[in-house]
């Protein structure tokens, strides 16, 4: 060692080194222990979460026939950076069957950061989406000559039959509302927009999976993160079996072609909807994929309003079909007995004339068979005036309320809340308050509301409610809420009517006679005893609506049907044969009266109804 006067300076120099390292350790302590922000920033930097879409649940009919399934669609993506000078744009355009201008426009759209926020030259950008397998076949073959081009697969809905569009509903891209309401969705996701697709969205959609990938600073995917330990597989949606009988549904839609109207068929014992047709309708395939938005606009603008589900949303006065309810309520509330007779003077009857010619006086079964208006007016009048009007009209109004409650117990004039039918109208059974407003508290009497006795006037019901009413009569006193999901748990939704089961016999007999001797006698089926009631709903805007309700077989009802054909005139002429054919199809599995079927389905009552 050499001694010198500056020997102690070694400590200064060592001190500098120690201080530097201590300062850096402090800084490291801050960055790595205290500062919490860097972890997330690092993950945002390096991790990409790629969604794996589950396949949507399939939809079957009651017999296990596949109605709705998934079709693969393809999108073509490009990585801009890999489009080099060897890229044959003309050939690429040829493969996809697009013009050079379309190509250039699409490319500039992709590059526009305002429209395409996640743009990166290094990551795949969607060039064209929703292509069919045919559309990409050519490109697929020569994919190798287009570096950076990828074909990705997603799924869309596909349909076995061009039927039941209203019931099944459709799938479309979610909007901001959906995203705000349900955090499951992100932009670009699909969800059920209407019908069963919407009602059973949670069941059908399954669960999205995620794949965590690493990307480098240029956005290039570098493979899975930690061997996929954060990945989540997608869970496919659960299949749905509907109560529809697709044969019956197809028949209903065929019979309605060229007409505006609807058919609802219900299995009375279970409340299961066998068919629910609304005309005009559309091919469900039209609201899938690329064509969805243009077709949807077209359907929206069509004057016949095809998107409107007439079976559940349209309301009509029930007309004479209401006489069945009227009879039951009057029997139950003891205004009449099956033996009560009322006189009928045919067209000269006052205050309501009779449209049919039959003997007088008539009893209930005959009155139903002949749809005798005076009978039902008299029965209604006697019911309403049972306690007189008193001094303040109150006994009458109390009677009216009792009558209204009994009618609504059949499910008329109200929405079914415990069901999976998404779009329904309420209908109306007018309340005392309603008439009070119009006529004043004491201003209305039974005679004022006489139209109600024969199902005309302010009373409005939907075809679904009519079908349910038919089912309730068929069941002799109860109904199960009509529904579309084939699930026995719905049997618990049993609504029992406060009507003595013995009263049904005479009404059923009347309805059976309608089909034997009355307005429906032309459409009897040889092997099956049917029951029904025709109706003609007065329509201030044009020709009357034809209505029919019925069930078959009479003794062990398997099917209850309601048919409405708008502006078709008498129920007996247009609605009854439809129902009759429905009975035949459902109960025998076949149509023997092919001539009748052809005649009905070929008749065009409304020229504007488009055939899809």
């Amino acid at each position: 060692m050499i001694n010198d006067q500056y020997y102690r300076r070694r400590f200064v120099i060592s001190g500098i080194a120690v201080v530097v390292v201590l300062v850096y350790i402090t800084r490291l302590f801050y960055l790595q222990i205290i500062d919490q922000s860097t972890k997330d920033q690092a993950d945002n930097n390096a991790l990409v979460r790629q969604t794996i879409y589950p396949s949507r649940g399939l939809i079957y009919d009651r017999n296990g026939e596949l109605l709705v399934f998934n079709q693969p669609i393809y999108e073509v993506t490009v990585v801009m950076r890999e489009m080099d000078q060897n890229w044959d744009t003309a050939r690429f355009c040829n493969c996809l069957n697009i013009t050079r201008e379309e190509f250039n426009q699409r490319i500039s759209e992709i590059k526009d950061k305002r429209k395409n926020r996640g743009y990166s030259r290094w990551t795949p950008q969607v060039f064209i989406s929703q292509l069919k397998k045919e559309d990409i076949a050519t490109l697929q073959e020569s994919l190798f000559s287009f570096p950076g081009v990828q074909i990705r697969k997603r799924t869309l809905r596909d349909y076995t039959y061009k039927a039941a569009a209203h019931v099944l509903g459709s799938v479309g891209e979610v909007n901001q509302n959906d995203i705000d309401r349900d955090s499951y969705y992100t932009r670009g996701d699909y969800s059920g927009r209407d019908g069963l697709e919407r009602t059973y969205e949670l069941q059908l959609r399954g669960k999205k999976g995620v794949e965590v990938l690493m990307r480098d600073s240029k956005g290039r995917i570098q493979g899975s993160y930690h061997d996929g330990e954060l990945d989540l597989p997608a869970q496919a949606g659960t299949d749905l079996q509907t109560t529809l009988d697709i044969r019956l549904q197809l028949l209903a839609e065929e019979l309605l072609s060229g007409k505006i109207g609807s058919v609802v068929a219900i299995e009375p014992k279970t409340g299961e909807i066998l068919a629910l047709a609304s005309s005009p309708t559309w091919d469900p395939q039209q609201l899938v994929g690329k064509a969805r938005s243009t077709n949807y606009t077209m359907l929206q603008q069509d004057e016949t309003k095809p998107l409107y589900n007439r079976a559940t949303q349209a309301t009509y006065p029930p007309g004479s079909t209401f006489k069945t309810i009227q009879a039951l309520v009057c029997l139950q509330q003891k205004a009449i007995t099956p033996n009560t007779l009322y006189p009928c003077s045919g067209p000269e009857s006052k205050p309501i004339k009779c449209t049919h010619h039959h003997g007088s006086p008539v009893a209930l079964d005959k009155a139903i068979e002949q749809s005798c208006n005076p009978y039902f007016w008299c029965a209604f009048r006697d019911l309403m005036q049972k306690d007189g009007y008193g001094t303040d009209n109150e006994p009458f109004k109390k009677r009216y309320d009792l009558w209204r409650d009994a009618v609504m117990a059949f499910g008329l004039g109200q929405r079914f809340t415990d069901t999976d039918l998404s779009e329904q109208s309420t209908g109306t059974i007018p309340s005392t308050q309603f008439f009070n407003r119009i006529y004043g508290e004491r201003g209305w009497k039974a005679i004022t509301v006489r139209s109600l006795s024969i199902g005309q006037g302010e009373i409005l019901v939907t075809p679904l409610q009519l079908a349910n009413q038919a089912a309730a009569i068929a069941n002799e006193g109860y109904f199960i809420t009509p529904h579309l999901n084939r699930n026995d748990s719905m049997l618990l939704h049993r609504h029992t009517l406060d009507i003595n089961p013995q009263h049904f016999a005479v009404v059923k007999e009347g309805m059976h006679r309608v089909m034997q001797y009355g307005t429906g006698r032309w459409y009897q089926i040889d092997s099956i005893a049917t029951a029904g009631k025709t109706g003609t709903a007065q329509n201030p805007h044009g020709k009357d609506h034809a209505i029919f309700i019925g069930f078959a077989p009479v003794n062990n009802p398997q099917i209850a049907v309601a048919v409405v054909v708008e502006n078709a005139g008498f129920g007996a002429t247009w609605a009854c044969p439809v129902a009759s054919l429905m009975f035949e199809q459902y109960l025998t599995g076949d149509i023997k009266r092919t001539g009748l079927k052809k005649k009905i389905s070929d008749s065009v009552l409304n020229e504007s109804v488009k055939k899809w």
Partner: protein
Amino acid sequence: MRASRNGNIWTNLDWQTIGLFLILVVFGWLNIYGASYTPDQTSIFDFSNRAGKQFAWIIGSVVLGVVLLLIDYKTYDTLAYIAYGLMLLLLLATPFLAHNVKGSYSWISLGPVSLQPAEFAKCVVALTIAKYMGQYDYRMRSWRDLIVPFLIIGIPALVIMVLQRETGSALVFAAFLLVFYRQGMSGYVLWVGLAAVALFVTSIRWGGTPLPFGTGSVGILSCMLLLTAIEIYFICKEHYVRFQVLILISSVLGVYSICMLLNIVWSMPFNWISIGVVIALAVYALIVSAYWRKYQLIIVALFCLLCIGYTQACDFVFQKVLQPHQRIRIEVLLGMKEDPAGAGYNVNQARIAIGSGRFLGKGYLRGTQTKLQFVPEQDTDFIFCTVGEEWGFLGSVAVLLVYLYFILRLITIAERQRSVFNRIYAYAVAGIFLFHLTINVGMVLGLMPVIGIPLPFFSYGGSSLWGFTLLLFILLRLDAARTEQLN
């Protein structure tokens, strides 16, 4: 003292240092592999990736080390001047032989590999300085004795900075200030240097911005007053003078604070008030020096005035002399500009990479930031990021402590030398390593401006690894022979 004459250098070799050297080199190599790791990565020995190449460089450096140890220790002393001359020629020739690599002309291609002569210049300059200052008749008595040493380090530094545009490698020669200091250069030089940096930072940070309530000027003024106080402490040994001046400084601060409060009521040009205050202080120091005949206080007064001039000059240099990219680097470093995508990108990404390592790190080869190339230069200048991300706080601190121990070991070696030549050379080596560590890690941690110099033994690159090997093993050779030398 009787020197061992058997010449067996293996027994006299400082194995501890060699162990540290191996630890650093191997750990650095592992991290280079980690920094460029991808899932389909080939083996660490595959020559087509950087880790494989580094392995070759490491083998080369070990061979080089052994060769250096086998050479007679006197050779280094003997050849120092000749080497210096040759090195200077090489440095001068380099810009003409070199290609433009990221704006600098410092790389010479030799077949498949490129060499950076500047990395080897450090070693030659260290030997030359040691030889010059280690002469028997060399004494550091006045500043004149420092002219030649400053030229020895200044000429290559200038060549590297101006001709090769390699500012980082040139700045490394500042490390020799520590050597000069150890050899007797006044500590005042280091102090002035530190003061200059402090004032530069404060005047750039707060000088240009007229902040509300004059906080900007307060920053500069406080800095000046603090520096003046330390200055007085250095210059004046008498307690009563120190006391007097300290009272003065605190009263100035008091008055200034009152002015600041008044400034809430009506605004004042505080920059000028700050300057006025410092000038008043200088005048007071002059009066006091005349009164008490304490002429040292004249230096204090001069210091005050120089401070004012200096801050103004800093502004000028910063705005007019520095290149835009250099200016932005400094602004980002001082937190004046947020520029995460531009100049601040490296530093910000480095911060994210290190910070996301947390306490234990993400595990070897499991870092996401470095291997996905979010951090530029991740296997060269920013290699410390990989350490921070994959090995966490524990690993980073361990690496820093190994370096600290390594540098302290070098200082210990330096102090046990018997010849001045050896000691000067040893201090030069220690100083260069310390400088590299300080600048490189400081840059990665966002505490130093972005100056591209490698982390010794860690950063990828043959030139720097061999350059450091040269520095270290010559020292080890000299150290092994320390007993053979007579003072």
